[in-house]
C-alpha cells in the first residue's frame, strides 16, 4: 500500500524557486496498477522519483507499507524512459545489475537474470550489447532488470516514451500480458498517453500543472483480464477520448498562462 500524504516539492536553483508539487495526496492499494498522467511539468516524474526514494519531499510524506520512504530500497524497482543501460556491458550483465547491487553471487544472478530475460522475450540475446538492440528490446532489458530483483512495487517512468508508435503498442500489450500473468505487483506507471493509461491501469491519477497537483482520480472501468481487443472497443475509445480532451484543455490553459506570465514579465 502506497500512501502519498500532502506531498509538496520546491526546487531551488540559483536563488530562484520552482514549485513542482503542491499538496498532493492519494493512495495506491497493494497489487493495483495505477497511472500518473498529466501535461509536462505537472511533477509526475518527480513524484515517481520520490516514491523510489531518490528525491525527498519538501513537505509531507510518502509511506509504503506503513513505513516512510527515506531512500531507495529492495522493495522497489525503477524502469526508465531512456532505458539507462550500461553501454559497455552485455544484456545479461545489465539485467543482473540490480541483483549484483544486492550482493547476489555471480552464478545465481546469471540464472535469475536469464530467466527474466526469457520472460520478456529476450532469450538468446544475453551476449548482445545495448547498441546492437532496438529501442524496444533495450527497454525489455530494463524491465527484466527491474523484475529480476522481485520488488514489491514497480515504478515505471514513461517507459515507452522513447519508442516509435508501433513498438510502443507491442510493448504495451506485452506489459499488460506480463503483468496480468504473474503475481501482480503494485505498479505506478507515469505516462503522457491516455490510451496507454486506460489500457494498462486500474486507476488513473490525472495531474494538473504549475504547480503540480491532483486534478482528478478516475477508476478505469474495464474488467480484467484485458487483452488487445480492448483497444478497439467503443467504450474504451469513448473513455479515453473524454479524458484526453480534459488533458488537452489543461495543457492549453497552461500554455496561455505561461504566455501571460511572459508578457507580464516583459511589460
Amino acid at each position, binding site marked *: 500500500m502506497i500512501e502519498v500524504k500532502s506531498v509538496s516539492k520546491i526546487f*531551488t536553483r540559483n536563488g530562484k524557486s520552482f514549485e513542482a508539487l503542491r499538496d498532493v495526496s492519494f493512495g495506491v492499494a497493494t497489487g493495483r496498477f495505477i497511472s500518473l498522467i498529466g501535461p509536462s511539468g505537472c511533477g509526475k516524474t518527480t513524484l515517481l*522519483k520520490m516514491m523510489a*526514494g*531518490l528525491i*525527498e519531499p519538501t513537505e509531507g510524506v510518502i509511506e509504503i507499507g506503513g513505513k516512510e520512504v527515506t*531512500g531507495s530500497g529492495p522493495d522497489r524497482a525503477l524502469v526508465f524512459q531512456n532505458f539507462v543501460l550500461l553501454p559497455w556491458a552485455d544484456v545479461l550483465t545489465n539485467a543482473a545489475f540490480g541483483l549484483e547491487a544486492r550482493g547476489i553471487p555471480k552464478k545465481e544472478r546469471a540464472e535469475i537474470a536469464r530467466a527474466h530475460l526469457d520472460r520478456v522475450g529476450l532469450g538468446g540475446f544475453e551476449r548482445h550489447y545495448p547498441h546492437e538492440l532496438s529501442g524496444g528490446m533495450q527497454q525489455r532489458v530494463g524491465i527484466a532488470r527491474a523484475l529480476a530483483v522481485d520488488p514489491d512495487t514497480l515504478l515505471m517512468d514513461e517507459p515507452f516514451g522513447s519508442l516509435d508508435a508501433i513498438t510502443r503498442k507491442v510493448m504495451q500489450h506485452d506489459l499488460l500480458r506480463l503483468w496480468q500473468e504473474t503475481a501482480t505487483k503494485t505498479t505506478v506507471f507515469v505516462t503522457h498517453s491516455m490510451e496507454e493509461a486506460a489500457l494498462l491501469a486500474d486507476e488513473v491519477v490525472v495531474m494538473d500543472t504549475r504547480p503540480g497537483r491532483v486534478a482528478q482520480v478516475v477508476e478505469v472501468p474495464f474488467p480484467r483480464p484485458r487483452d488487445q481487443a480492448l483497444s478497439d472497443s467503443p467504450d474504451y475509445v469513448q473513455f479515453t477520448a473524454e479524458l484526453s480532451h480534459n488533458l488537452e484543455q489543461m495543457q492549453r490553459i497552461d500554455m496561455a498562462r505561461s504566455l501571460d506570465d511572459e508578457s507580464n514579465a516583459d511589460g
Partner: protein
Amino acid sequence: MADIDSKVDGRGEVATSPRRGLGSLLDPPRLVGGAALIAGFVAWEIYARSLENNIFFPTVGTMAEGLVRLVQDPDFWGAYRLTLVPFLWGWVTSMAAGVAIGLIAGLSKTTWKLISPYVAFFHALPVSVLVPVMVVAFGIDLLARSSVVFLFGFFEVLLSTVVGIGYISDDIRDMTRSFGMGPVRAFRRVVLPGAMPAIMAGLRIGTGRAVVGMVVMELLLVSVGVGRLIIRYRALFQADLLYALVVTLAIFGLVALAAMRRLENYVLRWRGDA
C-alpha cells in the same frame, strides 16, 4: 560542478555555493585550493632553506625581492618592449590569417580536402622545430621572430574556425536556401554567428599558443629582448631574477588569456549563463 555525492544525498537539488561576498572565500573548494597553494609555498620555503647552497632554489622572500628589483630596472621594461613587437605582429597576423583561411576552408569542402593533410601534419608537429627553418629563411630579424609567433598561433585558429563552420550543418544551409536567402546573407546572418563560439574559442587558445611562441622565440633565437635577460641571469647565476622573470612571463600569459576570455564573453554575450 556538482559532484557525485550531491546526487547521492537524496535531495535532488543542485547545490549552489554563494558567489558573492566573503561567503565565497570560505566555501570549501576555494579554501582547500588556497591552502594547497600556501602549502606549496611553505614546502618550497622549507626546502630552499634546508639547502646549504640554494643558488638554484631561492626562498620565496628572495624571489619576491628579485621581482621588485626587476620591475624597477629599466632594462627589464626595454627588453619586454623589444619582445612585444614581434609578438604583436605575429599574433595579429596569425589570428587574421587563421580566421580568413579557416573560413574559406570551412565553406569550401574541396579547399579543405586539399589542405587537410598539411594541416594535420603541422598540427601533429611540434611547431618549435620550424624555428631553425625560419632562421635559415629570414635570419634573426623582426620577420623571423614574428613568423615564429605566427606559426604557433595560426594552426590553432585555422582548425577551430574550420570546425566552427563545420558545426553549421548542411540542414541549416538547406534551410536558408529554401527560404531564398542568398549565400552572402546566409553567411552573415546564420553561418558566421553560428560559428562564432568555436572561432572565439580558437582565438583564445591561439593567443595562448602565440604567447608560447613568443617564449620559444626568446629562448631559441638569439634575441635582444627577454631572451637576452634569461641568458644573462643564467650565466650569472642570478636565480632570483630568473625566477622573477619567469613569473612575469607567466603573468603576461595569464593577462593575455584573461583579456581574450573577456573579449570572448563580450562577443558571445547572447549565450547567457552557460
